[in-house]
């Protein structure tokens, strides 16, 4: 994550530093939010286990730290604007120190979460794993959490739902992709397989479209030096691979319920969008348009065959 790159990076200037660290804080908040929301829904009405209480305590601790951190970051970036070079150096030093403390605390909490991930209360174990996978900055902790997930929860639909949150938000990673792939292939539950197959397809498609232009951006490459090889691979995903996954999802897991719909419906909708995009590529015959003009008189795009047409989707706003 940018966050980590920032802590390790060699800083050329204050500005680069501030930019990186604000991006980091932002990405961080984005990754944390969906999980936090989900928790408040699932954990409420249950008699809480010891394990669950500890989980609440640890994650709260981090939430407070994070909010503290963003307040500091905002204040620092405000001060930067009017600071002298000496003052800037001082602010940088303070922020680096604060970041180091934060990272150390996160690593510590990550270790405690790993213990919770092995506890008897399966729901909390999954929450702890989810926490590590989204919030830990420690690669070893993440891979341990992923192993736990595969070993203990391969057939649990709750995990498939959680993976679908990972697959749709945050920074793409090879670990996420592998996890989705394993769940979609190895689970004994049709529900898990269906949701994971669908999520993997969306993950690949979103990753491809998001990274397509980003990987050309030098600032992006600078923020994620270790991930660029993977990002390039993801950006080169073939449409065909995505379509095959969606077809599998639509054929084998059509009735699996997910996100207020079914996998069959979701997969078919995605397939249709991909087909539409393919039909709109340069070199394809333009899909005909038939509809009313502004005065209500119906006409067709194909009426203009034989002429060069500049088709302008516009609005006066």
């Amino acid at each position: 994550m940018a966050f980590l790159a920032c802590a390790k990076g060699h800083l050329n200037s204050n500005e680069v530093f501030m930019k990186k660290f604000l991006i980091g804080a932002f990405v961080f908040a984005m990754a944390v939010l969906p999980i936090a929301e989900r928790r408040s829904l699932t954990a409420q009405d249950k008699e809480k286990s010891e394990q669950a209480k500890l989980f609440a305590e640890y994650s709260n601790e981090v939430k407070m730290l994070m909010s503290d951190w963003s307040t500091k970051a905002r204040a620092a970036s405000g001060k930067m604007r009017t600071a002298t070079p000496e003052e800037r150096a001082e602010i940088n030093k303070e922020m680096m120190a604060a970041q180091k403390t934060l990272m150390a605390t996160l690593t510590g909490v990550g270790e405690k979460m790993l213990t919770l991930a092995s506890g008897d209360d399966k729901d909390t174990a999954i929450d702890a794993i989810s926490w590590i996978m989204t919030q830990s900055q420690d690669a070893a902790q993440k891979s341990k959490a992923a192993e736990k997930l595969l070993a203990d929860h391969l057939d649990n639909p709750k995990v498939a739902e959680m993976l679908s949150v990972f697959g749709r938000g945050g920074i793409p990673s090879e670990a996420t992709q592998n996890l989705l792939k394993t769940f979609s292939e190895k689970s004994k539950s049709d529900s898990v397989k269906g949701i994971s197959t669908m999520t993997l397809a969306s993950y690949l498609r979103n990753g491809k479209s998001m990274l397509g232009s980003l990987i050309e951006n030098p600032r992006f490459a600078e923020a994620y030096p270790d991930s660029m090889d993977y990002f390039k691979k993801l950006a080169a995903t073939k449409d065909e691979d995505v379509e095959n996954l969606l077809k599998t999802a639509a054929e084998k897991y059509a009735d699996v319920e997910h996100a207020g719909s079914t996998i069959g419906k979701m997969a078919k909708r995605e397939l249709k969008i991909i087909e539409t995009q393919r039909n709109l590529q340069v070199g394809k015959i333009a899909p005909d348009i038939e509809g009313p003009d502004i005065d209500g008189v119906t006409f067709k795009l194909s009426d203009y065959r034989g002429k060069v047409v500049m088709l302008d989707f516009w609005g006066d706003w």
Partner: protein
Amino acid sequence: MYPHERSLVKQLADKPFALIGVNSDRDREKLKDVMKEKDITWRSFWNGGSTGGPISTKWNVRGWPTIYVVDAKGVIRYKGVRGDKMDAALEELLGEAGVEVKITHDEDGDGE
């Protein structure tokens, strides 16, 4: 946008060229006034009063304005070209249709 488009429409009036809009404004009556006021003479489809209308959905349009250039055979040839690149694209495609033109714009871009 409008001056450049007005200029193209004027210059290519007797050429096999058409500028066709797909308009996603909300208020059709207000739009008619705007078109009169800004001298928008070319024809537009009405996208049902919303950016989520049937035509922009079918064409998977996510940003506005979005421009496609379709050749005389009905094939999509360019996407998202503007300014000079748009002029070059039109010159090329009109050339393929057997009409050599050189598009020029004067300073205020209205082609006069």
